[in-house]
C-alpha cells in the first residue's frame, strides 16, 4: 500500500493543510510520498521532505506547473498515480480544482472531503452541507481522495528526512494560461489556517468597535472573523465571515464576541477545539456550544481580556 499526497504550496513554503493530508494518508497505511508540482519550488520540496511520516518527495519543477493549473497538474498526477494505491490532497481550492480531473483520467470516483479513515477503503464524509455524515466504501482499486484538513491533526512539520527525487515528465495541455492573482495581504494569519480566531457579531454595534478585537488578536496571533449578522450590517467585509456560507474554521481556540450563535454561524466554527463565548445575553445559543462562557458586556470584557493575556 502506498499513497501519493499532492502538496499545497506556493513554491516557497508548504501550506499547513498538507500536514493534515499527510496524517490522513498515514492512516490509510503504507508509504506516504508527497508530490510538489511547481516552478522553482525546491524550498517547498525541502519543507515537504522534513515532514514526519513522509518517506519520499517527488518534485516536478517546471514552468508548466508554476501556477498549478489543473489542466497540466492533473496529467502529471494521473501519470504518477500508476505507482500508487491512493492519491490524496487537502480539500483546498487548488486540490478541489485539480483532483476530480485526476480521478476522471484514471476512470475512478473521487471521495471528497473525508473526515475520517475507517479502513483502507471506507471513509466518513459530510453531505447535505454537514447536516448528515455518510460512511462510504470505495470499490476502486486506485482511490482519489480529498481530505477536510480541520478533521485531521497536522503531521509534525519537522523530524522527517525524506529523499527528494526529481520528476522529469512535463505536461503542458496548452489550453489554459494564468493571467493574474489578487490575494488579500494581512499581517495576521489567514482565517482558515489560524490557530486562534476571535470573531465579532452584531453585538459589536459598528465597524469601528471591531478595533477592540485588534489588541487581543495581536497578542494571541489570532485571525479576526465575523458573524453573518455583522457582515450583513456592514460592519466588516464579506471575506471575514465565518459560517456555513462563509469560511469553515476549526482553530485551537475560537473566541465569539457579541455573537448570538445562529445555526449558520455554528456550522462554520463548531469543530474548534476550545470555544469561548462572551455575550451579555445569558440565554444566547452560543453558550450551548461554548466550553467557557462569560456573561458580560463586551465593552468591559474586551479591554480587561486584552490586559490580562
Amino acid at each position, binding site marked *: 500500500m502506498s499513497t501519493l499526497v499532492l502538496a499545497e504550496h506556493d513554491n516557497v513554503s508548504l501550506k499547513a493543510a498538507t500536514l493534515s493530508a499527510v496524517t490522513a494518508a498515514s492512516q490509510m497505511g503504507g508509504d506516504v510520498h508527497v508530490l510538489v508540482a511547481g516552478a522553482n519550488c525546491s524550498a517547498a520540496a525541502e519543507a515537504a521532505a522534513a515532514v514526519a511520516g513522509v518517506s519520499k518527495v517527488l518534485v516536478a519543477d517546471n514552468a508548466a506547473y508554476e501556477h498549478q493549473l489543473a489542466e497540466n497538474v492533473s496529467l502529471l498526477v494521473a501519470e504518477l498515480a500508476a505507482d500508487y494505491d491512493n492519491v490524496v490532497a487537502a480539500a483546498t481550492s487548488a486540490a478541489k480544482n485539480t483532483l476530480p480531473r485526476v480521478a476522471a483520467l484514471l476512470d475512478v470516483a473521487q471521495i471528497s472531503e473525508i473526515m475520517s479513515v475507517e479502513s483502507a477503503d471506507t471513509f466518513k464524509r459530510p453531505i447535505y452541507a454537514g447536516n448528515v455524515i455518510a460512511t462510504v466504501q470505495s470499490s476502486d482499486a486506485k482511490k482519489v481522495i480529498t481530505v477536510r484538513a480541520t478533521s485531521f491533526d497536522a503531521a509534525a512539520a519537522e523530524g522527517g528526512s525524506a529523499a527528494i527525487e526529481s520528476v522529469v515528465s512535463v505536461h503542458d495541455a496548452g489550453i489554459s*494560461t494564468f493571467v493574474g492573482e489578487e490575494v488579500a495581504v494581512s499581517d495576521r494569519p489567514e482565517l482558515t489556517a489560524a490557530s486562534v480566531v476571535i470573531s465579532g457579531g452584531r453585538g459589536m454595534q459598528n465597524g469601528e468597535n471591531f478595533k477592540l478585537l485588534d489588541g487581543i488578536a495581536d497578542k494571541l496571533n489570532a485571525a479576526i472573523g465575523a458573524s453573518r449578522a455583522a457582515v450583513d450590517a456592514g460592519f466588516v467585509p464579506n471575506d471575514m465571515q465565518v459560517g456555513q456560507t462563509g469560511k469553515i474554521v476549526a482553530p485551537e481556540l475560537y473566541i465569539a464576541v457579541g455573537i448570538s450563535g445562529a445555526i449558520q454561524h455554528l456550522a462554520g466554527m463548531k469543530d474548534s477545539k*476550545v470555544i469561548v463565548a462572551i455575550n451579555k445575553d445569558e440565554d444566547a445559543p452560543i453558550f*450551548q456550544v461554548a466550553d467557557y462562557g462569560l456573561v458580560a458586556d463586551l465593552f468591559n470584557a474586551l479591554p480587561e481580556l486584552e490586559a490580562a493575556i
Partner: protein
Amino acid sequence: MKVLVAVKRVVDYNVKVRAKADGSDVDLNNVKMAIKPFCEIAIEEAVRLKEAGVATEVVAVSVGPKACQEQLRTALALGADRAIQVEVEGSVEPLVVAKLLKGVVEKEAPQLVILGKQSIDGDNNQTGQMLGALTNMAQGTFASEVKVDGDSVSVTREIDGGLQTVNLKLPAIVTTDLRLNEPRYASLPNIMKAKKKPLDVLTADDLGVTISSHVTQLRVEPPAERQAGIKVGDVAQLVDKLKNEAKVIA
C-alpha cells in the same frame, strides 16, 4: 456560440435534511425539490451571454429521472432555448454524470459548458472538472467573473485567500460560485412559454455510456453534537481556565 448549461434537481436548500433513524439513508419523504442554487447562477450567466449577443443558443441539460424535467422547464422559463433530459434511474455518481455530459457535448458541440460548482446534496464538487478531463477542455472553476473574448474566455476564480484569473481556450468549462451573478425570477409569461419549448429525452445507451458504481454508501448518521461547557465569573477566571485547564494560551 452555443452554451450548454447543466442543471440538477436537488432537495430545496431551505430543507434541513436528516438521517433516517435506522441510518440507512437520508429521509427524503415529501421534501420539496428544486433546482440547485449554483445551477440557477449557471443558467443566469448563460442567458446574460445570450442577451449580450455573445451566445446564440442556450441549451439546458439534466441527468436524472423524469421528475427532473420540472427543473429543465424552470431553466427554459429563465431563458434557455431548449432542453435535454438524460434519463437515468436513482442517483448516479459524478463520474457517470460527467461521462453522460461528455456524450451530450459531443452531440451538441457547445463552445462553453456552465455548471454549478458543487451540489447541495452530495457536496462532491467534481462533475465540471471531470467533464473537463474527459473532453480535454480547460476549466474555470468557482467563477466570479466570465468574459468571452473571441476564441478564448477569461475567468476570475474564487481561490483560498483571494481571486485568480485564468484564460482558457474555447471550448471550455465554467463552474459557478455564489458571487458570479444574482439569478432572476421566472416571469409568469415566460413560465407559460417554457411549456412549449423543445425538450428531448436521451438514454445512457443513446450516448454510449455504461452506468457504473464505484462508491457504496454504507450508512448515514447525524453529526456529533457539542456539549455546553461552564460559565466563568469574570475575565480573570476565563484567562486562568484558558491557560491552565484548556492550555490553549501561554
